[in-house]
C-alpha cells in the first residue's frame, strides 16, 4: 500500500524513531520523576513542546507545497487558523452553561453582543465528529476554491505568493469584525474541556502533547508517501519545469490542486491541535507576518526535505521563547537577521548542511531534489 511504503525508507525510519523516542522520553520524565528532580519535565514544558510540535506539523504542510510544488504560500496561517477556529468553536460549545453569563447555548461573547440565537454556521459544532470533520473540511474547501481559481488561470510565482498573502490578510480583517460571530478581536477562549477531559489537568495536557506528536508522525508519513509516489514526482516536475510538464501531457493544475488541498488540511489539523494547548484562538493567527514566519522555519530547516521543516520549526520557536523571555527587543532583530542570513548564505538550510556531511562520508549520491527555482 502506498501509505506504508515510506516506512521502508531509511530516512523516514530514522525520523519516526527519533520523534517517537523523544515523545516517550518526555512522557517518562514527566510522569516518573518527582518535580524537584533536575531532569523532571514540567507540564508547562510539555505543553510548550506540544505547541512546537503543532507548529512543526504546520511547517511540514508548508514544505509540502513550497518544497515539492514550488508554490510559496504566504497564507498557510489562514488554513492553520481555520482549523483552530473549528476546534475552538467545538470547545466553546463544550463550555455549556459554565461561562460567565451562564447561557447554556450561546458563548459568552454572543451574550455580550446581545445575540439571541446561534448563527447557522455554529450549528453542529457541539458534536465532536462534526467539529473534527470541519477541522479538515474548512481549510480544505478554502484551499480547493482558492487553488482551483488560481491554478486554472496559471497564477504562479510571486503573484501567487502575493495573493495568498492578500487572502490571509482579508480573512484576518474579516475575523476581527464582531459581526462575523467568531468573537472578534478577542477570539475564542476560556475553554473548559475536550471530549470530557478537563483541559487544565496535567494528564490531558500530556495526552494532547502525545496526540500532537502522533499527528506529526502521521502527517510526515502522508507527505512522504505523496512525495515518493508518482504523483509526487510529477509535482516536482511541475516545480522545476511547469511548461515542460504540461507539454508532456500532465494536467499540472490538478496535481497542484491536490497537493495544495492536502497541505491545507494538514495545516488545519495542526491548528486544531494548537488551540486546546494554548487555550485561545484569535485573528492574529491570520496575520501575514505569522504565515511568512512559517516559511522562514522551512527555509532555515531546509526546503524539500520535510524533516528539515520540523527541525526549523522547533529551533526557531525555541529561540523565540528564549529571546522573548530574556530580551524581547532583540527578537525581531534576530528573526529579521535570520531571514537574511538563511536566504543568502544557507539556501538549503540546516538539512543541506547535514546532507553535505553524509555525502562527504559515504560519497554516494542522495536523491534529494535540487532546490533550483522556477523563475516567475
Amino acid at each position, binding site marked *: 500500500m502506498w501509505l506504508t511504503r515510506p516506512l521502508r525508507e531509511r530516512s523516514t525510519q530514522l525520523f519516526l524513531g527519533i520523534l517517537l523516542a523523544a515523545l516517550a522520553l518526555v512522557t517518562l520524565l514527566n510522569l516518573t520523576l518527582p518535580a524537584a528532580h533536575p531532569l523532571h519535565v514540567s507540564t508547562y514544558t510539555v505543553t510548550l513542546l506540544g505547541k512546537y510540535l503543532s507548529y512543526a506539523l504546520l511547517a511540514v504542510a508548508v514544505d509540502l507545497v513550497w518544497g515539492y510544488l514550488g508554490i*510559496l504560500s504566504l497564507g498557510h496561517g489562514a488554513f492553520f487558523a481555520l482549523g483552530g477556529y473549528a476546534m475552538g468553536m467545538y470547545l466553546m460549545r463544550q463550555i455549556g452553561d459554565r461561562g460567565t453569563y451562564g447561557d447554556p447555548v450561546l458563548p459568552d461573547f454572543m451574550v455580550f453582543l446581545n445575540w439571541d440565537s446561534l448563527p447557522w454556521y455554529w450549528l453542529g459544532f457541539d458534536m465532536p465528529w462534526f467539529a473534527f470533520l470541519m477541522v479538515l473540511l474548512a481549510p480544505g474547501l478554502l484551499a480547493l476554491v*482558492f487553488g482551483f*481559481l*488560481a491554478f*486554472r*488561470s*496559471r*497564477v504562479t*510565482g*510571486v*503573484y501567487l*505568493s*502575493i*495573493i495568498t*498573502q*492578500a*487572502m490571509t*490578510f*482579508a480573512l484576518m*480583517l*474579516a475575523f*476581527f*469584525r464582531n459581526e462575523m460571530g467568531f468573537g472578534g478581536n478577542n477570539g475564542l477562549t476560556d475553554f473548559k474541556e475536550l471530549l470530557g477531559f478537563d483541559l487544565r489537568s496535567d494528564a490531558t495536557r500530556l495526552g494532547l502533547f502525545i496526540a500532537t506528536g502522533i499527528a506529526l508522525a502521521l502527517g510526515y508519513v502522508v507527505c512522504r508517501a505523496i512525495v515518493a509516489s508518482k504523483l509526487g514526482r510529477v509535482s516536482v516536475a511541475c516545480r522545476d519545469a511547469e511548461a515542460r510538464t504540461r507539454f508532456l501531457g500532465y494536467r499540472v493544475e490538478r496535481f497542484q490542486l491536490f497537493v495544495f488541498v492536502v497541505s491545507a488540511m494538514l495545516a488545519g489539523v495542526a491548528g486544531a491541535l494548537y488551540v486546546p494547548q494554548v487555550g485561545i484562538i484569535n485573528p492574529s493567527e491570520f496575520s*501575514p507576518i505569522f504565515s*511568512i514566519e512559517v*516559511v*522562514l522555519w522551512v*527555509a532555515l530547516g531546509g526546503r524539500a526535505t520535510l524533516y528539515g521543516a520540523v527541525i526549523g520549526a522547533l529551533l526557531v520557536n525555541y529561540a523565540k521563547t528564549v529571546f522573548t523571555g530574556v530580551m524581547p*527587543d532583540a527578537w*525581531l*532583530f534576530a*528573526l*529579521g*537577521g*535570520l*531571514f*537574511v542570513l*538563511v*536566504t*543568502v548564505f544557507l*539556501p538549503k538550510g540546516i538539512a543541506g548542511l547535514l546532507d553535505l556531511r553524509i555525502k562527504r562520508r559515504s560519497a554516494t549520491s542522495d536523491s534529494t531534489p535540487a532546490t533550483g*527555482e522556477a*523563475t*516567475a
Partner: protein
Amino acid sequence: MRIPDSLCRLVVLCLLAWLPWVAQAQDDPGQTLLESLDTTSYVEKGEAIEAIIASGDERSRRWLEALLGGKLQRHKASGQFVVVLENRGRHWPVVDALGFEEAGEMSRRELDRIGINNALRGQLQGALAVLDLHADEVDERREAARALLGDIDATLAEPLQALIDSEEDGEVRRLLEQALAIHRLGQGEMAAVEDLAGSLNSRVRAALSSASRSDDPQLAQAAGAALVDIEQKMKLNRGLETLYFGLSLGSVLVLAAIGLAITFGVMGVINMAHGELIMLGAYTTWAMQQLLPGQPGLALLLAIPAGFLVAALAGVAIERGVIQFLKGRPLETLLATFGVSLILQQLVRTVISPQNRTVVSPDWMSGSIMINEGLSLTLNRLYVLGFALVVFAGLMLVMRRTRLGLEVRAVTQNRAMARSMGIRATRVDILTFALGAGVAGLAGVALSQLTNVGPNLGQNYIIDSFMVVVFGGVGNLWGTLVAGMSLGVINQVLEPWAGAVLAKIVVLVFIILFIQKRPRGLFPQKGRAAEG
C-alpha cells in the same frame, strides 16, 4: 476750620491723575458717542445707539453689550465712562470705557448707571445681531451674515433690508437675502421659496422642510419641490466628495506603489521592505521638523529631497547587501527583504521610540477650500494629490526621456542583450533600486501629512501597494496610476454602506478574483517584454 494737609494733597493728586484722561477723551469721537447716551430721554438714547452702530467704531460691540447688561456706567465726579467688570460687593473693578485700561476699583455710590427700558433692550439685541455686518473686513461681514440665517425676526427685517441695499459685497448680500427669505418663508410668503431654491445651507433646508409641512398646501408643495431639488444637488455633492476622498486615497496608494512598480517591474524583485522605506521617508520629515523648530513649512519642503535621499541610500544598501546575492531567485528575495523590513522596524522602535510621532502641518496646508456650502476640499489632501501627480509625471519623464530610463527599459526587456550592447546592468540595477526606494521616501514625506508617523506605518501600506501593482500590471507605470486611483475610489464608494473594514475585504477579494481573470493585471506587458 483747617483742611488737613494730607487731604489737600490727595485731591490735587486725583485731579492730576485725571488730566491725561481728560486730554485723551477730548480727541476721542467715542467720548461724544457715549456722552449722547447719557440722557434721560429714552428716545434720545435710541438715537444715540443708532449713531454708535453707524459709526463703525470697533469698540461698539463692547459698549452695546455693556449697555445691555447695565454695566456701562459713568463716574459721577469726573464724568469718566467705565465698564463694570463685576458688580458684586461695594467696590467694583472697572475698566475705562474708551481705552479699556484697568481703572482700579470704584465704589458703587460714585457710579451712575446708564439705564435702558424694554424697547431699548429689544433694539440693542437686534443691533448686536447685525453689528458685525458693519465691520470693515468682508470676511467678518460674511461670517456675521451666515450666522443670521434662520435667526431673523420681524424687528430685524427692516434694518436688514436697508443693509442689503448699502452692502457692496455680493456674497454678503446673497446671504442676507437668504436670511430675509427664510424669515418671509416663515410668514408664509410664496416668493420666498423661489429665493431659497438651490441653496445647500442646512438652515435653509430646515426652513424649507418645516415649510413643506405647513398648512398652506400650495406653499407646502412648492417647498417640498424645492427640497427635492436641493436633495439632488446634495447627492451630487456627496458624490463629488466621495470621488475626492477616493482620489486622495488613490493618490496615496499610487505614491506608495509606484516605487514598488519600478523595482518589481524592472528587476523582478519583490521588495517586502518597501513599506519600511516609506516609513523612513516619514521619519525624515519628522527629523527635519525637529531640526528646524518653528518652521514646519520649510522643514517639509526640505524633507522632500532629504526623504528621497535617505530612502534611496537605504535602498542601495539593501540592494548591495542582500538582493544582489539572490539574482534569479524571486521567492528568496521576498523572504530576505521581509527580514530587512523586520530589522528596520525594530531599529526605529529601539532608536527613536515605539510611540507615534506627530508631524506638524504648515499653515498653508491646513484648512480647506470651500467649493460651495455642501462641498469643501481639505487642503492637505489636495496637496498630496497634486504631489502624487507631480511625482508620477517626473517618473514618466525619467523613464521615457533620459538615458537611465532607456537603459532601464533595455535591461527589463532583455538583460543579456542589453549587457552585450554595453549597458552596465549592475549599475542600472542599483540606480533603479535607488530610484524606486527614493520614491518610497517621497511617499513617506507625503504620508506624514495625512497619518501618524510610527514604526508600523509601512506595514499598513505594503499589502495595499502590492495589490495596486498586481492589479495595474507589473512594469507599467500607467497601470499603477489607474489601478491606484480606481482602488482608492472603489474603496471610498463602498465604505458608506459596507463600513471601512468590509470595504477593504471586498476590494481584496475583488483583486484576488480579478487576478484569476487577468493574471497579468489591467495593462499587461505585450511583446518581448512580457516574456521575461
